[in-house]
């Protein structure tokens, strides 16, 4: 890459756009996974732990196999097991899905740190990126438009999931189960089974999101790799009103907020770095306050979801 051209403060929005695309991918995968799980009427807060475990598992698998894509598969597979476990145990009477999510979040993090210790030093292969900025000769534009394949897959997945909910039998099943367990039973659907697989698929997607973290951006495995991104993605589903397409736009918005700190740093603003670093958390909180409602059920919310009851 050539020397950065002098484009002054324009660098901030440009770096934020590039950053938004780079940073948003894990948000996108986790929020799509959580969207599917919540549409079936369960909430899995454990996706933060699944994301971190996926990051570790993906990195380790890519390191040993030499293939980044094998790492992505392994991360998705590991995430699926976390989802299957949550989906299975939450069918028992008295087991609270939110509390179990917290427990699995802590367990996922613990296991990831436990098994991840030997992988902090070694270097695993990276996921490839596609350059969509070939038309520009400004290096910052080119850098901003280097897009990872997983981002594109995530975008397609958002469209596919929206179509699935609207037009397919599986989508209908998930929606019915999420809106009324009794109605689902009455027409012969098995709510526990639908929730089991919705949670498993959600876990798999979160695992893939984790692989993106460790295999592309930031592109290495360490214990501070997520710091709440999975959790923000879960909050983002509420803001996106359980709609996969909205999840995509919300993930981009969050990615932009997450890129604010590094973008300002890149143009030399370094004071208050930690406060800019907190921008995504603050944005999430503000959006939650703005879009929640104290006295009526949220529009678009699956009515079996415990947080909306």
């Amino acid at each position, binding site marked *: 890459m050539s020397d950065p051209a002098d484009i002054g403060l324009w660098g901030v929005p440009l770096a934020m756009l590039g950053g938004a695309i780079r940073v948003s991918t894990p948000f996108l995968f986790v929020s799509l996974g959580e969207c599917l799980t919540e549409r079936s009427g369960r909430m899995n807060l454990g996706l933060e732990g699944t994301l971190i475990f996926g990051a570790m598992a993906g990195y380790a698998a890519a390191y040993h196999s030499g293939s980044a894509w094998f790492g992505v598969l392994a991360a998705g597979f590991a995430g699926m097991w976390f989802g299957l476990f949550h989906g299975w145990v939450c069918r028992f009477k008295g087991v609270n899905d939110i509390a179990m999510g*917290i427990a699995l979040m802590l367990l996922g993090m613990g296991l990831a740190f436990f098994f991840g210790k030997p992988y902090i030093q070694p270097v695993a292969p990276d996921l490839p990126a596609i350059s969509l900025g070939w038309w520009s000769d400004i290096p910052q534009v080119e850098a901003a438009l280097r897009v990872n394949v997983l981002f594109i897959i995530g975008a397609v997945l958002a469209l596919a999931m929206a179509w699935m909910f609207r037009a397919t039998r599986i989508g209908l099943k998930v929606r019915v189960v999420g809106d009324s367990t009794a109605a689902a039973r009455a027409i012969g659907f098995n709510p526990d089974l639908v929730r089991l697989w919705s949670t498993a698929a959600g876990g798999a997607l979160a695992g893939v999101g984790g692989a993106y973290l460790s295999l592309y951006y930031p592109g290495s495995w360490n214990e501070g790799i997520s710091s709440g991104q999975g959790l923000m993605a879960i909050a983002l589903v509420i803001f996106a009103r359980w709609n996969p397409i909205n999840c995509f736009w919300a993930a981009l918005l969050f990615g932009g907020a997450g890129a604010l700190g590094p973008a300002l740093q890149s143009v030399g603003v370094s004071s208050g770095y930690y406060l800019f670093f907190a921008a995504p958390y603050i944005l999430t909180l503000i959006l*939650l306050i703005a879009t929640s409602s104290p006295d009526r059920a949220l529009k678009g919310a699956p009515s079996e979801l415990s947080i909306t009851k």
Partner: protein
Amino acid sequence: MTDTTTASFAPRHAYLALWLPRIEAVVIPLAALISGLLVFSLFLLALGKSPVEFYSLIYKAGFSSGFSWKNTLSRVAPLLFAALCVALPARLGLVVIGGEGAIVLGGLAAGITGAMLIGAPAGIAMLMMVLMSALVGALWIGGVGWMRVKRGVNETIASLLMAYIGIALLNHFVEGPFRDPASLNKPSTAQLPDALRVGDMPIGIEVHWGFGAGVVACILCWFILDKTTIGFAARITGQNIRAAQVQALPVGRLIIGFTAAGGALAALAGFFEVSAIHGAANGSLIAGYGYTGILISFLARHNPLAIIPVAILLAGFEASSGLIQRRMDLPDATILVLQGIVFVILLLSETLYGRLAIFRPSYWRV
């Protein structure tokens, strides 16, 4: 059934109906804890490590001698306060898991207040440190309750988000405006003079006053929850919020009050960490006590009295972490895995309540 048999049976039945649920509430979590330790043993066996060695190291480092008890008890204080921050809102049916944020900011407030009042009379300065710390914690977690009441924001997600914001604020202040220029390796607020350091309790074992304060706080919380009308109102709200509203209980004020109280207590954990252990506010405050506190409160079934022994047990686990790492060549996350497994099995055991015939009074009728 004749009148005489009913009369002779009734007291026994009332006695069973009173005590069986209490025994159930002790036996099931205890069985879950033991099952969790057993499952963790399988995990160790699968890795080719000895569970016997593991648990004997925990006993040795955490509970075997005066030195190990000191090691354990000095870690109990923050865990007691952190667990109370979960237990108080839990009475109202709220799952607040962001106590870590209040701990960190409480410590920061204590550190800054102490640094600004160096030279003032020690008693007043110390009092101000406690008050500022508790105030910041109360506002922080009380804010979570306020968002819940006014806007219906999910308290679990909001509190955890705020924990991340709290940690960012701590980093900002200790590396920016309130950094002591003398703290080179580890950015900190100014070192507190000895007069502003909390000392050890005169009980023959080196444990700072935070332990005593934590135990007193647990007993006080138990008293308020179990013996006062406020606690009664809170319990009704937790069991059925609609019923509480129908009874015209001040549900909103209860939620804000209980979350604020929990936050103030968690902040005291930060105060004691700064004043008794570190001597200044810095990154050491981010030690994960808030997360261990969640597990403790759930294991204690959100009962403040039960929090005391559970916190001592888990403090012993954490105290032995270093020895386990060195002797068994296991990573420091081992204790996290153990806690995670115990937590998962504990929540699974919730499904047993009311299902086991042995805990029904009818089982004991002859």
